[in-house]
């Protein structure tokens, strides 16, 4: 059992580290041992003890400064293998990049490193972040710590599994259509996707550029805040990162300050801390496709919020279902172009046998990419093709704007936050949807709209379901743009009133 699990939060771990009651090296060593011991989960793709221990030793030196040490000094985390790293290989869980090493670090990676965090290595995910079950990894599926036969969700499946199994205090993930929220829900951990543009995409391998956004996964909202705040901020190397959020400078400290101010506001309200908060509950999120066990857990969570003083308001997001085809046009369109660079010319997999240039490229790509990636490249190429562009891509962009407007209408007068399920069901068994990829696409129904609108949203554990071993259910909390700090404060209130986030899977 890794040492960090003796601490219930990053804050208490930090206290112990600064007081030198535990060293970064001890934490890292025990975490690496645990990662090896739980190799069955296939959560980690690349571990390099030397690299990790070097970071731990550097953190220990910083910790000599005591209270002056960076906030995350010595905290063991791990990165989704979609973030490029100079030390560890970066594969995007693809055969295409099986041996790839980046000459630079992703901004998210270097920011967390500058904050003192110690990286345990790189985490499994769906190939190029395309998938909802981590089954599309060229290096085998990651497993759900609650039930090794169940998927951990995806695409940040390794990240959620590692946190759920206690292998890391937190992990980075990326969310294009739900890839942070959905695995967090299915693994019973907390995750947040911030507003598009608050976190730099530099060094995050692109899937759907207009949707991709990095976010942390951790046990609870307070730890998410510890990780998200230093990750965020304007980056001159990403033209889509924002210089300002609603008039405030986009820099570390912004989300933290918002959290503190919201938490104070709630504290001041006494026994009904959330009095006046209007929770919009979209009817479309509770339709026929929603499994009863998930519905029950989510309803209970909403009742908890009501008991804290919040008011429940029925709202409508009429284009919830349309988000699916819209997303599965836009994301593959962007992906088909983003993934063109993997051609076997400069780096990555190159076919052994080819007779000319065209064949070298097509064979390298056919061999290097898995079936889901090929599928999305083909869909994306099709929808951008001459004669189809207007009917698919342009039409999808129009619907996307309508979806944005639907959310804005809800936030304009009806509600302050929106809540509902993250997924229609608890985690499926590994292999269930192998013959039916579209079934996976349809299961993204509750998360896609948020991604298309670029809104911040999170998932917090809110109960269990399933017919065999208990499997976690997640509650989705969606806020208006730049309300990350407030969302985390809300989630924190919920977690003060519940203990779902403290439940741990039995060690198999």
């Amino acid at each position, binding site marked *: 059992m890794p040492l960090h699990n003796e601490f219930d939060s990053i804050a208490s771990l930090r206290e112990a580290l600064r007081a030198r009651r535990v060293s970064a090296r001890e934490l890292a060593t025990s975490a690496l041992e645990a990662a090896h011991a739980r190799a069955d989960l296939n959560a980690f793709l690349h571990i390099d003890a030397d690299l990790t221990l070097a970071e731990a030793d550097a953190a220990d030196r910083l910790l000599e400064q005591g209270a002056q040490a960076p906030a995350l000094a010595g905290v063991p985390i791990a990165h989704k293998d979609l973030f490029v790293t100079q030390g560890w290989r*970066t594969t995007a869980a693809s055969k295409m990049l099986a041996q790839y090493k980046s000459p630079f670090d992703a901004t998210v990676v270097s920011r967390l490193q500058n904050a003192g965090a110690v990286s345990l290595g790189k985490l499994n995910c769906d190939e190029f972040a395309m998938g909802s079950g981590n089954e599309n990894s060229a290096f085998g599926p990651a497993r759900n710590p609650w039930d090794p036969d169940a998927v951990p969700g995806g695409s940040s499946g390794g990240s959620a599994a590692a946190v759920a199994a206690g292998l890391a205090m937190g992990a980075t993930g990326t969310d294009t259509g739900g890839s942070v929220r959905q695995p967090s829900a299915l693994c019973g951990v907390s995750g947040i996707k911030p507003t598009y543009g608050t976190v730099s995409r530099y060094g995050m391998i*692109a899937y759907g550029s207009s949707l991709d956004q990095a976010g942390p996964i951790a046990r609870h909202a307070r730890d998410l805040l510890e990780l998200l705040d230093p990750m965020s901020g304007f980056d001159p190397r990403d033209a889509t990162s924002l210089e300002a959020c609603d008039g405030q400078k986009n820099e570390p400290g912004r989300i933290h300050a918002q959290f503190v101010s919201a938490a104070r506001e709630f504290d001041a309200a006494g026994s009904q801390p959330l009095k006046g908060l209007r929770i919009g509950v979209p009817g479309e999120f509770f339709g026929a496709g929603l499994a009863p066990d998930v519905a029950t857990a989510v309803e209970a969570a909403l009742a908890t919020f009501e008991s804290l003083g919040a008011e429940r308001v029925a709202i409508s997001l009429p284009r919830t279902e349309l988000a699916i085809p819209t997303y599965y046009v836009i994301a593959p369109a962007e992906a088909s172009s983003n993934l063109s*660079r993997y051609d076997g010319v400069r780096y990555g997999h190159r076919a052994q046998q080819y007779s000319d240039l065209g064949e070298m490229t097509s064979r390298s790509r056919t061999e290097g990419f898995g079936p889901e990636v090929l599928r999305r490249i083909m869909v994306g190429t099709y929808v951008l093709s001459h004669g189809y562009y207007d009917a698919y891509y342009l039409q999808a962009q129009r619907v996307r704007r309508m979806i944005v407007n639907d959310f804005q209408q809800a936030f304009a007068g009806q509600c302050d936050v929106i809540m509902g399920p993250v997924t229609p069901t608890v985690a499926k068994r590994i292999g269930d949807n192998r013959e039916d990829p579209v079934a996976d696409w349809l299961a993204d129904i509750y998360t896609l709209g948020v991604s298309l609108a670029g809104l911040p949203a999170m998932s917090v554990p809110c109960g269990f379901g399933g017919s065999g071993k208990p499997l976690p259910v997640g509650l989705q909390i969606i806020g208006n743009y730049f309300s990350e700090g407030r969302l985390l404060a809300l989630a924190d209130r919920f977690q003060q009133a519940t203990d779902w986030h403290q439940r741990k899977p039995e060690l198999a």
Partner: protein
Amino acid sequence: MEWEIVIGLETHTQLSTQSKIFSDSSTRFGAEPNTQANEVDMALPGSLPVLNKGAVERAIQFGLAVGAHVAPLSIFARKNYFYPDLPKNYQISQYEIPVVQGGSISFFVDGVEKTVNLTRAHLEEDAGKSLHEDFTGPHGESSTGIDLNRAGTPLLEIVSEPEMRSAAEAVAYARALHSLVVWLGICDGNMQEGSFRCDANVSVRPKGQKEFGTRSEIKNVNSFRFLERAILFEARRQIELIEDGGTVVQETRLYDADRDETRSMRSKEDAHDYRYFPDPDLPPLVIAPEWIEQVRAAMPELPRHKRERFEQALGLTAYDAAQLTMDRDTSDYFERTAAALPNGQAKLAANWVLGEVSAALNREEREIGACPVKPTALASLIARIIDGTISNKIAREVFAAMWSGEQGGDADAIIEARGLKQISDTGAIGAMIDEVLAANPAAVEEYRAGKQKAFNSLVGQVMKAAKGKANPQQVNDLLRQKLG
């Protein structure tokens, strides 16, 4: 049948920024392969483009210079196609909404002014280079190398309307465009290094027909001379094809300078489906009016404004003004010369710059910047014509001496040393006239009988006696007096 050639040009001008359009690596020419390509230029996983403001400012300058609309909002799009020297396998360009819209370029062809409208000018990145020749792989095998130093170099693609009707017009347009971008300093204009490349869209139609014929696009034309030859060849090819009963197919053709012919590269059927779509990595390019004004304020005086000023304030002809504003160095040279002369003498300065100076420069294939006769020296020579010290004809002799550095290139010293000073002493000229009249009684008779020709012959005799140094006007006046 009489045929008309229709030509439109697409010109890729390499913008003179220090760094690339979407990355901070250098754009310097001629470095070791792949030493000027960073993670963005090599399209490594996770890299992202960030727009170079300097490239945008150069596009704005161009837009202002040609009187175009500088779009307050333009969009970068991805042009998708696979090629090994295109690292992302898409080119970032502008498609539906370019940064510069409209505008026009005016120039002279055979002394007649012509204006060609521009469709647009858009920003885009250049590709790398494939090295097919003299390249061997790591094991000595023949192979193709990729040099990505050029990848990401900023380009402004300037597209004209199909408004040129001859190869000569196309070349004149290209030259005018070339001098403008060099004038503005937004492009170094080096054609050998590929800083200024033209593709020509060429079609033919029976004279008088309204509809355009089917066009072919000629690529790879890297000099004005080749541009002219390529268009002439292509037009002839199309005319012969049609006259032989064939039809022109829409295609891309490559000009082969060695064989002086165009060859089919790919037909419309093989044309790529580029699957353009807005680049999600780059927000729309927003150009606020204040930015445009900032750029405008820092711009050199535009050639067309200078031209107007030369015509209106200095009284030059439209043609002379246009010739003098073909490039900045020439106009500077002219202005410095004119400035050193009394007001109202600019016309004389223009004649000298466009006449003697430019002829000498052409003869020796020199740039005006390297002219051995500096503007102030030229002005001092012209001043001697104005004050009657020497005639225009003698001045040419002095100029040649100045050019070769005689007497340190000083006009007065040369005039003195060579004894070229015009004789304006009435007594001396009168004496020479008396001698001539005495020696030519027959001519005197003829003149008195009313033959003007005889007078001219007498003037010639006097000038000859004066070795060309007598003031011709004075000779005329005195001679008339004496013949009474």
